């Protein structure tokens, strides 16, 4: 479709689409939106490697695919290893990988497939320094299997295996800071991003593309099905996660931390604003909310300190 130039000029995101309609994501799915942005950034010359996760389904069953790019489905814990193999093979074939005009090899895995079962392969991929981008779309639980907690599930959340009940059996530990583990590898480029801030996400995708070596982006991707939230509130929730400093936007680049807009703006909103729109937090007591709030603020202070010292 041709777009008039005056409209094109006003677009803040690439007009081109390589993620087509007809996919099978739930309404309000943050993951499918994220993958759409990834393909807007990298275009058709992209090899997307997807482990067993929601995106396996979203991409469509044989003989359909919603992606206008190479798509490679693999086992749950193998994303880091498979992108390593694909990258090595493309290089062996003399194909330019990464960089402005290179072929993009992208691992696209959920929080369970990254923070839990895929952590070892992720670590191997980063420490070996392959030229590929690993994107963790973080919807904070095993959504594809039916909302079981992962190590990326936050404190106080209901999931189907932290179901509340008489003994108040909710998630009782805080969200794993996967990106800190990634940064411990001294990766050339890592960043957090959010569905609510696509321009920021696209900029980070481009930066990941240009930076030689491995890159990692943790994308906050709301899941109305698992979060028991209204399907038209996904972007609002993603925005509130940033505004409450629950999920701050920042970059780690060559050893330097930088907190990005809008996380740099004023003081964080109270965590209740993020919690109240989601059914998964409805069992939390006042004390639970306080526990989560103080953790969020402590982590936020820690990040600010890092940015101050290593900015």
């Amino acid at each position: 479709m041709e777009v008039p130039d005056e409209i094109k000029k006003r677009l803040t995101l690439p007009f081109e689409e390589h993620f087509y309609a007809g996919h099978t994501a739930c309404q309000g799915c943050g993951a499918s939106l994220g993958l759409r942005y990834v393909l807007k950034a990298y275009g058709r010359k992209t090899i997307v490697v997807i482990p067993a996760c929601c995106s396996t389904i979203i991409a469509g069953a044989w003989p359909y695919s919603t992606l206008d790019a190479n798509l490679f489905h693999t086992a749950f814990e193998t994303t880091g290893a498979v992108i390593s193999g694909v990258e090595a093979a493309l290089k062996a074939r003399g194909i330019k990988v990464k960089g402005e005009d290179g072929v993009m090899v992208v691992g696209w895995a959920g929080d369970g497939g990254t923070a839990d079962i895929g952590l070892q392969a992720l670590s191997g991929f980063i420490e070996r320094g392959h030229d590929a981008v690993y994107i963790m779309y973080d919807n904070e639980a095993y959504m594809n299997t039916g909302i079981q907690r992962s190590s990326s599930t936050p404190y106080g959340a209901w999931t189907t295996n932290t179901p509340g009940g008489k003994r108040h059996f909710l998630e009782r530990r805080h969200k794993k800071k996967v990106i800190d583990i990634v940064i411990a590898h001294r990766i050339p480029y890592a960043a957090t991003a959010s569905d609510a801030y696509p321009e920021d996400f696209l900029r980070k995708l481009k930066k990941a593309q240009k930076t030689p070596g491995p890159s990692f982006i943790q994308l906050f991707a709301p899941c109305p099905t698992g979060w028991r939230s209204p399907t038209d509130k996904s972007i609002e929730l993603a925005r509130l996660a940033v505004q409450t400093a629950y999920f701050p936007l920042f970059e780690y680049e060559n050893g330097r931390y930088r907190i990005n807009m809008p996380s740099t703006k004023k003081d964080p909103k109270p965590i209740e604003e993020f919690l109240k729109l989601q059914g998964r937090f409805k069992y939390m007591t006042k004390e639970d909310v306080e526990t989560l709030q103080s953790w969020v603020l402590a982590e936020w202070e820690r990040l600010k300190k890092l940015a101050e010292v290593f900015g």
Partner: protein
Amino acid sequence: MPIRTVMKANEAAAWAAKLAKPKVIAAFPITPSTLVPEKISEFVANGELDAEFIKVESEHSAISACVGASAAGVRTFTATASQGLALMHEVLFIAAGMRLPIVVAIGNRSLSAPINIWNDWQDTISERDTGWLQFYAENNQEALDLILIAYKVAENEKVLLPAMVGFDAFILTHTVEPVEIPDQELVDEFLGEYEPKHAFIDPHNPITQGTLAFPAHYMETRYLLWKANEAAKKVIDEAFAEFEKRFGRKYQKVEEYRTDDADIILVTMGSLAGTVKDYVDRAREKGIKVGAAKMTVYRPFPVEEVRELAKKAKVIALLEKNITFSVGGALFQDFSRALVNEDEKPKLVDFILGLGGRDVTFQNLDEALSIAEKALRGEKVDEVNWIGLRKEIL
């Protein structure tokens, strides 16, 4: 000119890989196979092999990286054994399902617990249902040759299946034997450049691989794997014939030894075949009508050849370094399948021996043979017999 030298099977496997010129090798150390990637990394470091060597953090990632690389259109190689192969298990199905002609060298080793690093075939036998081709080497020369042949068969358009080549832990992996290294030029002619003609990742021509298949489609993919395994039987024969023509060494799926006029045939695999052939010579000197057969190819299972073999004997004794609990050895099961509906068939007697590196001695074979002779005389014998057990510690 081919080079005649001496080397361990691990080195022979590394040489085979070097001759096959894989573009990506991903490997993780494990006893007794560690020397294979070690030697290959030397080849890469010296510039003798132009390949990407991925030093992965597990066998699971080794095979996963090979899957990614093979799907991206290059020849790949790895080596492992035992727990390492077991760790790969999940991904072996993926490699076969995606029809990726990866070749893996295996130093056949037992599985824990208890921890044991020595030889039996439980590791590869346990992977027999993954869709992979399986070859077993009797000696170090065979380890080298069969890896080259494995590539030839695996990459054939009618087959497109991954392949594993097994050679016995320590008995071969760490034992120096004479080996002839074939000419690179001849190997190049034999294998050719790897040009994937089926689905593979081409950045300019996007496809989807390994997609979700509903019940309406999944079963056909399994059937096509079945068909590919069937097709491999003929392709293997052709590859063996071409290999013999070019390199002068003859291979057969089921290699017979002194089976004419035999009453009893001892069937086995791997390095044990060498012992059994010697044993047959001794027994023949005593006038015992016994022969031997070696299963060089285990998957696809050579049903026709086994039926032909069976016509030559009244009793077939299966000597196996593996066990399926409550059933018996894998060969016993597969021979039963091949012969169950034959009008005339020999008696099958199964012998489990040599597990976890226990030596298989002539005394052990005497014991097996005496049971087989009882069966020959029409006496009732156990279908599954454990040979060489130390009853005093049981």
